[in-house]
């Protein structure tokens, strides 16, 4: 039926390189998520509690991140900043793009999380003599964390999948590396098939460890 001979050997030979690239994928995704959580938290709090310029800045960030393609955002950090003479390395382009995107999506999750914790929880905490900071860090944030835990997990998966766009801006993470080998050997299908399996495995490991962690973290 097939008029095609599959050649898996070259792929298997470069498997170590692919796995190393996969660790780079994971690295950039994790870093983008950490930064995304920090920025996302700031954006959410700015949109909830501030007015004026800061509010509009945060809102513009969130809406742009959510309403334009991730690839557009990467292009912006690539060519777009290039227009101002700022040339980021491919690694930084992907990191900045993913961080921008993750922060925007996470900000909305956080905002929802903060809104879901009733104001009366703060009142009750304050009535016990807690400072505003204590009430936030001991009572509100732990509850918000539980609410946004699954969205954060999903966003982590998205960050891994999105990092594959690095291939289009010359970053040799898993997809970029795959393309590099594929175009050298012309075994495009074989290379990308193996890479698909690696991505699938990464995603499953993330989801599984997230579930295991949730079982330990949330007992209520």
């Amino acid at each position, binding site marked *: 039926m097939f008029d095609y001979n599959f050649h898996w050997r070259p792929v298997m030979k470069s498997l170590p390189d692919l796995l190393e690239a996969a660790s780079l994928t994971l690295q950039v995704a994790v870093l983008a998520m950490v930064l995304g959580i920090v920025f996302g938290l700031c954006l959410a709090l700015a949109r909830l509690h501030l007015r004026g310029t800061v509010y509009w800045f945060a809102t513009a960030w969130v809406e742009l991140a959510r309403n334009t393609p991730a690839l557009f955002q990467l292009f912006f950090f690539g060519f777009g900043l290039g227009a101002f003479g700022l040339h980021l390395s491919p690694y930084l382009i992907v990191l900045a793009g993913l961080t921008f995107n993750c922060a925007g999506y996470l900000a909305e999750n956080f905002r929802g999380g903060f809104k879901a914790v*009733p104001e*009366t*929880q703060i*009142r*009750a*905490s*304050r*009535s*016990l*003599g*807690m*400072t505003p900071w*204590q009430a936030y860090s*001991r*009572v509100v944030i*732990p*509850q918000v964390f*539980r609410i946004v835990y699954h969205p954060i997990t999903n966003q982590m998966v998205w960050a891994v999948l999105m990092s594959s766009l690095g291939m289009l801006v010359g970053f040799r993470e898993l997809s970029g590396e795959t393309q590099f080998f594929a175009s050298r050997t012309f075994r495009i299908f074989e290379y990308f098939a193996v890479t698909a399996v690696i991505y699938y495995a990464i995603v499953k490991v993330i989801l599984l460890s997230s579930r295991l962690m949730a079982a330990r973290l949330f*007992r*209520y």
Partner: protein
Amino acid sequence: MISIRDLHKYFGALHVLKGIDLDVQKGEVLSVIGASGSGKSTLLYCINGLEAIQDGAVTVDGTDVHAKGTDINKLRQKLGMVFQQWNSFPHLTALENVALAPRIVKGKSKAEAREIAAKQLQHVGLGEKLDVYPGALSGGQQQRLAIARALAMEPEYMLFDEATSALDPELVGEVLDTMRLLADEGMTMICVTHEMGFARDVSDRVAFFHQGVMEEIGPPAQIFGDARSEHTRKFLANVR
């Protein structure tokens, strides 16, 4: 002693407290009754500084609650508060709920805080529920948990804001019993309540609020038997 002098409170243009004067002595149990919106809950919020005031003064043992230099967090340790919505912390067990504030506000050690918490939970009859999360407790149990949580700060005064209003009728009794227990132990209490039986049997004095004004205050026998104000008589006739 809690003293309130010519207290005025506005929500925007709405004048909710119109010059309240009131003293509550150590050891006294005061019940505050009146229709919803009469300002009685707001009074409690003004006493522990959860709401700002526009005129007058509230002092607790000589400390001005609303003065700039007052350490409100320290003052609030003296003033335990129980809310209509019990507001248990859902992410903590019953024991952790009660132990949290002693630990982080008073700086007690973890072991000490847990000991205090266990003692107070025992006190309100939740000795069997130490490691249960609030989600698995009934409303009445959660409200008793809230009382234990306030008591763990060793307050000198307890403020109850309609502590039984949000409860199913069959759960009201257990919470009132706990409040009665505290009164018998000599706790100073201000109870905003709709439970006329409790107000009559337990309090030393009863205050009736009407449209932001304290219409009248006196011993339960006088308020329930021989109210001076027309408004008080009308209100009592309606609730009974």
